[in-house]
């Protein structure tokens, strides 16, 4: 399987489409996780949003730059999801897209800056800190790992793989936490012992990125 160090529009599309497939497949699982500590709609929300994104992508013409694609995807999530995850993931993708600008291709450093911008957007909007039992508990360590690897000179695929692993660890680490943000916080101590749905969907999205980059374009 070939490996690339530069990312283009095709890769970004594969990422979003792969995310849509994974979120659709895991829809009921995510909703069950949300039923335990939230209001049982996270799977529905993410699936509704990303399937709209896929439809939207088909309307874009071939030449659209990766940054624009992400901005469009983010706007689509915001317009179709509702709930907490819509604005959060919508803002994340929009910020990432803006940071990529109109370049037709970009490297690991640019991708890292984009995901750092995404994380920043999520924290700005939701004010969650690591340990609050939210998607930030998966996204933050992932972006950290990515930065380290890229600074250490590893190629994008390896760096992204490390980010995905960090996200999975962060996701698992949400189980013993007490939620202090979002609906789950109403449960107080009763939120302990459950895995956070948003952190779980975050892992699915990072896995999709890893696979999109791994495939030769």
């Amino acid at each position, binding site marked *: 399987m070939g490996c690339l160090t530069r990312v283009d529009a095709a890769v970004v599309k594969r990422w979003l489409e792969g995310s849509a497939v994974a979120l659709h497949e895991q829809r009921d699982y995510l909703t069950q996780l949300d039923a335990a500590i939230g*209001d*049982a*709609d996270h799977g*529905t*929300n993410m699936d509704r949003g990303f399937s709209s994104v896929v439809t939207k992508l088909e309307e874009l013409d071939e030449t659209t730059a990766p940054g624009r694609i992400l901005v469009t995807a983010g706007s689509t999530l*915001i*317009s*179709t*999801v*509702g*709930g*907490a995850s*819509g*604005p*959060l993931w*919508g*803002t994340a993708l929009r910020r990432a897209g803006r940071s990529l600008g109109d370049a037709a291709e970009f490297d690991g450093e640019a991708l890292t800056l984009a995901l750092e911008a995404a994380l920043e957007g999520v924290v700005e*909007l*939701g004010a969650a800190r690591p340990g609050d039992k939210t998607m930030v508990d998966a996204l933050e360590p992932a972006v950290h790992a990515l930065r380290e690897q890229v600074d250490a000179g590893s190629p994008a695929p390896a760096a992204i793989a490390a980010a995905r692993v960090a996200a999975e660890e962060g996701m698992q680490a949400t189980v013993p936490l*007490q939620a*202090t*943000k*979002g*609906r789950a*916080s*109403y*449960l*107080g101590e*009763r939120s302990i012992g459950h895995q956070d749905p948003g952190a779980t969907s975050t892992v699915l999205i990072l896995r999709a990125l890893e696979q999109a980059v791994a495939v030769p374009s």
Partner: protein
Amino acid sequence: MSIAAQTMKKFVNAPEDVVKESLAGLAAAHADLVRVDFENQVVVRKDAPVAGKVGLISGGGSGHEPMHGGFVGRGMLDAACPGEIFTSPVPDQMLAATKAVDGGAGVLHIVKNYTGDVMNFKLAAELAEDDGIDVASVLTNDDVAVEDSLWTAGRRGVGVTVLLEKIAGARAEAGGTLQEVADVARKVNDRGRSLGVALTSCVTPAAGSPTFDIASDEMEFGVGIHGEPGRRREKIRPVSEIVAELTDTILTELAPANGANLLAFVNGLGGTPLIELYVVYNELTKQLADRGLTASRNLVGDYITSLEMAGVSITLVELDDELTALWDAPVHTAALRWGV
């Protein structure tokens, strides 16, 4: 879909069409008051935008009827944005509503404190500002079942929202500026607190089964309007004891002045019959009298519901002359009407 519909005790066609079909019914029943923009899923006051008047919009998940669509009309809301059942509407709806009601004096966004609602309204406000519309936002967070601390998303917005929409709407109708309307809205929220109790769970059409399980002799004390858990699960007690604890808990947080005049709101959550709501109101007036407080104004009925949940919530707002006059001002909506 109709198969699914038939397995629940609901009058529905396809569950995913309930919100739109219900809005169509609202539009048909109250064509004199509202029009419905189905493309953006927004309920708009018939004569909006009212030139020179501050526009008021609110919104949130559906399933709480008559809130908010039933409160659109003269002296209350200019528009409402209904989301899917129990899911926050999206910024596009809020932006469309904001544009539809902007009469040049700015628009007030009335937001219940839930993470999703807050974020979506925040994005909508940014988009509206980009379009050069003056927007102010007020957050309702009156549910004392949730402690307002770093450990939670903060108190939820519940019953006060209804009373605030009426009072702020009257202020706008009377020509108040955006600042003045926002100020009186915040004043209502600051002077109001609520608490509810559920005897049964709601059933969302999409799920078709109860949101939470509860034994035949149990009640959820401090329940949320989406079926969120409350302070504790316990055995059902005589209504006198339930109302005494609700009143105590609310007043402890509200701490009204001695002999204060209150707006006492006994709200049914959807499945509790009116005969019981008046029994609750009777107990409430006793509790208030024992504390030297007066319910100088009241509202009893189903106004902020949780589908068919059997339960009740009590909201108390400490009145002053300004709030009393605004509460008494004429209002003409599908669900609240007087003086006209």
